[in-house]
């Protein structure tokens, strides 16, 4: 397929690998922010091609992984109310809340529907006016325009039985929280390409200036990723800290202005809790006053009764790049895809799931 096949060329990848090996002198920790990038790196084995001087850290860019257990508790509680249908992306259905997951709610008779697009949650709302349809709205800036669009659509079509349980988040404040941490080990960042198509690169430019760290906006195919890693290594070896766009076929500096306008119509920026990272200032979106009727938290009696349980999952160390999944004592033992202790073993983009799928044989050797 055009715009995929040419960016999977092993010839180009090998050439970059060889150049990276020739360039690298120091020991560098490079974090890919997005879970999609983490999976591509493992799927194509890029981590194994790199020099041992380069350690890839896997960032917090998996929305499923950073959604607090308390939101899942609330989603379960809504789904069990008579007359409701809870629509969710498929990845969320097995993520553990504090006591249970949405799959077990379905087992108790809840109507939990897996959707591919937020638009798929509007259709049942039109068709079933006597039911309450709730969309579990998770995602980063990539998904926010779609969620804003369905709220506007519900409003314009006067659909009264639709609402969202909002857990959407913004990436740059979370990245800044990691960079501010005194224990931060990150030398360079690969910024999440698809998030940046929407946001543009202004906020990343500020982070480059403030923290003097190379940030490379990077795509998702092997050639994109290895190019991003090469650009980071080149800068690190020269002592530079610049913003670089290695995904210019999709990203421009100012981002998607119409998407930003629609987001601004529907949402205000607010503080948000992240699983494993705590509350991060300005890292979320709240529905504006005029769209509050579409907030499931206003519509249902789902007062938060519990904060996230502590368990053996080291989600916070992994999301912040302090540990990798194979360093977790539970990895592959009590925590497996069939029996996950935490969200990163469930999500198709979680780094634990990536290690399990592509590297667990290595760990057992």
């Amino acid at each position, binding site marked *: *397929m*055009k*715009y*995929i096949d*040419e960016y999977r*060329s092993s*010839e*180009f990848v090998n*050439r*970059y690998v*060889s*150049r990276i090996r*020739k360039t690298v002198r120091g020991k560098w920790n490079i974090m890919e922010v*997005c*879970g*999609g990038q983490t999976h591509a790196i493992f799927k194509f084995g890029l981590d194994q091609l790199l020099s041992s001087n380069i350690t890839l850290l896997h960032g917090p*860019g*998996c*929305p*499923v992984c950073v959604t607090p257990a308390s939101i899942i508790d609330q989603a379960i509680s809504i789904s069990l109310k008579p007359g409701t249908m809870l629509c969710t*992306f498929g*990845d969320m259905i097995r993520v553990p809340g504090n006591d249970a997951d949405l799959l077990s709610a379905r087992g108790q008779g809840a109507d939990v529907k897996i959707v*591919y*697009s*937020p*638009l*798929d949650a509007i259709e049942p709302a039109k068709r079933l006016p006597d039911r309450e349809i709730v969309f579990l709205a*998770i*995602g*980063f800036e*990539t*998904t926010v*325009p*779609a969620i804003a*669009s369905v709220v*506007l*659509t519900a409003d314009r079509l006067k659909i009264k039985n639709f609402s969202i349980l909002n857990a959407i988040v913004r990436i740059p404040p979370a990245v800044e929280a990691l960079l501010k941490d005194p224990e931060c080990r990150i030398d360079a960042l690969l910024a*999440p390409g*698809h*998030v940046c*198509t*929407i946001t543009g690169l202004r906020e990343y430019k500020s982070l480059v200036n403030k923290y003097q760290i190379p940030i490379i906006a990077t795509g*998702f195919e092997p*050639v994109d990723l290895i*190019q991003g890693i090469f650009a980071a290594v080149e800068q690190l070896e020269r002592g530079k800290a610049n913003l670089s766009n290695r995904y*210019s*076929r*999709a*990203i*421009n500096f100012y981002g*998607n202005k*119409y*998407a930003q306008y*629609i987001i601004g119509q529907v949402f205000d920026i607010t503080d948000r809790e992240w699983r494993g990272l705590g509350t991060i200032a300005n890292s979320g979106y709240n529905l504006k006053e005029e769209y509050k009727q579409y907030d499931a938290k206003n519509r249902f009696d789902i007062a938060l009764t519990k904060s996230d349980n502590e368990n053996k999952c080291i989600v916070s160390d992994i999301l912040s790049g302090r540990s990798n999944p194979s360093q977790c004592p539970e990895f592959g033992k009590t925590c497996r895809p069939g029996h996950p202790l935490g969200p990163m073993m469930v*999500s198709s*983009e979680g780094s634990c799931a990536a290690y399990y799928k592509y590297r667990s044989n290595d760990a057992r050797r």
Partner: protein
Amino acid sequence: MCLAVPGKIISIEDESEIMRSGKVDFGGIVKTVNLAFAPDAVINDYVLIHAGFAIARIDEKKAAQTLDELRLFNKSKNDS
């Protein structure tokens, strides 16, 4: 979650603002998607699709430029 797949616009069926939509061909699989967030994309353009929505029009010139750079890089001599 932030997966986005490139596809080619083969028809535009609704031009009304946030409802702008059309058919996109993903290497033989055709889906109707929302095109509102790629307002300047027209038939035969490639767009990145995420969760049923176009999030960006792929810049053909920039893509060609990147590939030219890659080919040049691949031919460069200061490498084994």
